[in-house]
C-alpha cells in the first residue's frame, strides 16, 4: 500500500461542526479498504481529540498518515496546555465546565479513551503553548 497523508484544520469556535475531520478520516479509511474495527478505533481516538481541541484549545490540526503497517495520528493545538498530564489521563478527571457537560462531554473519558483505542499513545503538553498527541493504530498486529 502506498502512503496516504491527510491533513485537517479543526475550527475552535463551532461545537456543532466538531467531528467533521474525524468523519472525513473515517470515510477515507473506508474507501481504501481498512478493516472496520481498525477504522472504529481510529475514529474514536480522533473524535475525542477533536472534541478536546474545540472544548479546551480553540481548535487545532489533525494529521493522519496511513502506510501498510499502521495509521499514525498527530493532533496539535496551541491552547492552554495541560499542567498535570498524569492527572488528566485518569478516568473521570475533567476540567470541563457545566455547559460542556450539558453537551454530553466532559466526563473525564476523552484522553483515557484515546489511549484505550490506540496501540501507541504519547502526549506532550506545555502550559501556555499547547498540546501534541501522537497515536498509532496498527493495521498488522
Amino acid at each position, binding site marked *: 500500500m502506498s502512503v496516504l497523508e491527510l491533513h485537517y484544520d479543526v475550527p475552535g469556535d463551532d*461545537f*456543532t461542526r*466538531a*467531528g467533521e475531520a*474525524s*468523519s472525513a478520516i*473515517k470515510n477515507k479509511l473506508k474507501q481504501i479498504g481498512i478493516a*472496520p*474495527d481498525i477504522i*472504529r478505533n481510529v*475514529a*474514536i481516538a480522533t*473524535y*475525542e481529540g477533536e*472534541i478536546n481541541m474545540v472544548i479546551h484549545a480553540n481548535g487545532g490540526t489533525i494529521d493522519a498518515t496511513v502506510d501498510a503497517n499502521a495509521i499514525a495520528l498527530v493532533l496539535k493545538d496551541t491552547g492552554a496546555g495541560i499542567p498535570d498530564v498524569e492527572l488528566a489521563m485518569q478516568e473521570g478527571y475533567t476540567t470541563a465546565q457545566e455547559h460542556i*457537560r450539558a*453537551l*454530553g*462531554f*466532559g*466526563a*473525564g*473519558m*476523552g484522553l*483515557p*479513551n484515546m489511549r*484505550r483505542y490506540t496501540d501507541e499513545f504519547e502526549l506532550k503538553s506545555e502550559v501556555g503553548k499547547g498540546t501534541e498527541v501522537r497515536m498509532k493504530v496498527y493495521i498488522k498486529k
Partner: protein
Amino acid sequence: MTIGDIAKLLECEVLCCADRLQSEVHTACGSDMMSDVLAFVKDQAVLLTGLLNPQVVRTSEMMDIICIVFVRGKKPDESVVALASQKNIAILSTSSRMFEACGILYENGLRGGASSGGVSVSAGGA
C-alpha cells in the same frame, strides 16, 4: 431484535431512515454522556439518549451505531435529523423515559454488550 421491533415496543415516531427498520440490533446503550458511549465498543448497537445536539449523531457515526432513540418525547431539530439521514442512522423518538425505555428493551431480550458475542469488550454503558 430489529429497529422496527424497537419502534413498536417503545411506540416510537420514526424521524428518518425508515428503510433501516429491518436492520438487526444486537446491543444497546443508554446515556447522555457521549464519552461514556465512546468508552465501550458495541456491535450493531442502538443508543438511547435524552441529549439532542449534533454530537449525538457524530458519536454514533464513530461507533457504527445504527439507530438513535430519543427518550422523554424529545425530538432533535432538522439539522440533526438531516445529519443522521446522511449517515444512514435511523432516528426514533419515544415518549417513554430513559429507565422505562431501557427496561422494555431489556425485558424483550436486548442486552448491553457482553452477551452479544460480537466485538464488544464490556457490558458497560451508563
